[in-house]
């Protein structure tokens, strides 16, 4: 008990000594090129509701709890403490742990003073019969109160028994966010996915989502919400998804 108390006090002392906020997000399906300030620590909670109708109808709510730490002026590291989801469909419902992950972002150029802000992103996920690698090129340009961002992402997934099932995905996302006031931004996000089951493109699976976003920030917290509707007609993919990210400095 004493040991637990000591550990608790030690962790609380470290957290209180940290200089706070990692930054606010203007998008939820895109990353921005700037990284967190060195020494800052932030907790982000992601909630994504996916809804599909028709024969394969389902509702799924994904949760992510992420700690984000600014290592240097240009480098940040994050841990996804837990990714889990609750799903309900005509046959069953329940919650399932999915994976835990680490994410690293290195900033190359600044979106304000350089012609284009660029960052590179790497992520490794591991879960129950799941390994996933993700790399991303993040680009961004700020035009005064307007932020334009583009992400190109390549994902490889190995899952199932002996990790025998493989899937690849390339996706690109484009977003615009206009700062109405220092606290409020609103904009649009577009997501275009190319899915390659077993790394083949025989099924020609293409998904396109589009929808608005809004972001509010105050003191050391922010909340950003995006609602995306599917513009294609892919079965097994959600017709609608709503993502909320709530972040707070620790």
């Amino acid at each position, binding site marked *: 008990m004493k040991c637990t108390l000591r550990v608790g006090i030690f962790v609380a002392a470290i957290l209180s000594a940290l*200089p*706070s*906020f*990692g*930054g*606010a997000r203007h998008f939820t399906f895109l990353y921005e090129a*700037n990284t*967190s*300030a*060195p*020494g*800052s620590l932030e907790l982000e909670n992601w909630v994504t509701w996916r809804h599909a109708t028709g024969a394969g109808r389902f509702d799924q709510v994904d949760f992510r709890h992420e700690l984000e730490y*600014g290592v240097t*002026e240009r480098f940040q590291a994050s841990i996804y403490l837990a990714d889990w989801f609750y799903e309900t469909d005509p046959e069953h419902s329940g919650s399932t742990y999915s994976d835990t992950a680490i994410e690293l972002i290195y900033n190359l150029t*600044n*979106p*304000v*003073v350089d012609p284009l802000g660029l960052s590179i992103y790497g992520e490794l996920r591991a879960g129950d019969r799941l390994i996933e690698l993700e790399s991303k090129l993040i680009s961004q340009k*700020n*035009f*005064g*109160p*307007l*932020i334009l961002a583009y992400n190109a992402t390549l994902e490889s997934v190995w899952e199932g028994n002996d990790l025998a099932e493989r899937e690849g995905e390339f996706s690109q996302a484009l977003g615009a966010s206009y*700062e109405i006031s*220092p*606290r409020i931004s609103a904009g649009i996000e577009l997501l275009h996915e190319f899915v390659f089951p077993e790394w083949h493109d025989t099924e020609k699976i293409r998904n396109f989502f589009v929808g608005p976003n809004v972001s509010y*920030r105050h*003191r*050391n917290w*922010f909340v950003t919400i995006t609602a995306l509707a599917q513009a294609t007609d892919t079965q097994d993919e959600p017709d609608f998804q709503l993502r909320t990210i709530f972040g707070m*400095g620790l």
Partner: protein
Amino acid sequence: MKKVSIFVALACLLVSCKSTNYVPPVTSQMATPRKGQHVDLAMLREGRTLFVHRCIECHTLPVLWRYSTEDWPDIVDNMSHRASLKPAEREAIIAYILAVRFAEH
């Protein structure tokens, strides 16, 4: 026709946003002593770098003439904790902003 109108509107928006220089580069004129205070160029350059890196973590950069020279120190002070600014870094940002403001006059 509708597509062209949207394109023209977007182009106008981009041009209007971009035509303002939100972070003017540091010049030797900005380091001119004023009110008995000496500001060195290295400090101003550091302030500009921090301004474009730290402040955009939460919001886009405002045009520097939006707030008065009297207001800027308090504005930066209020956000310095969130931006994880050390006292010297906060002073460098304030010095840069005020130097730009004075150089404009």
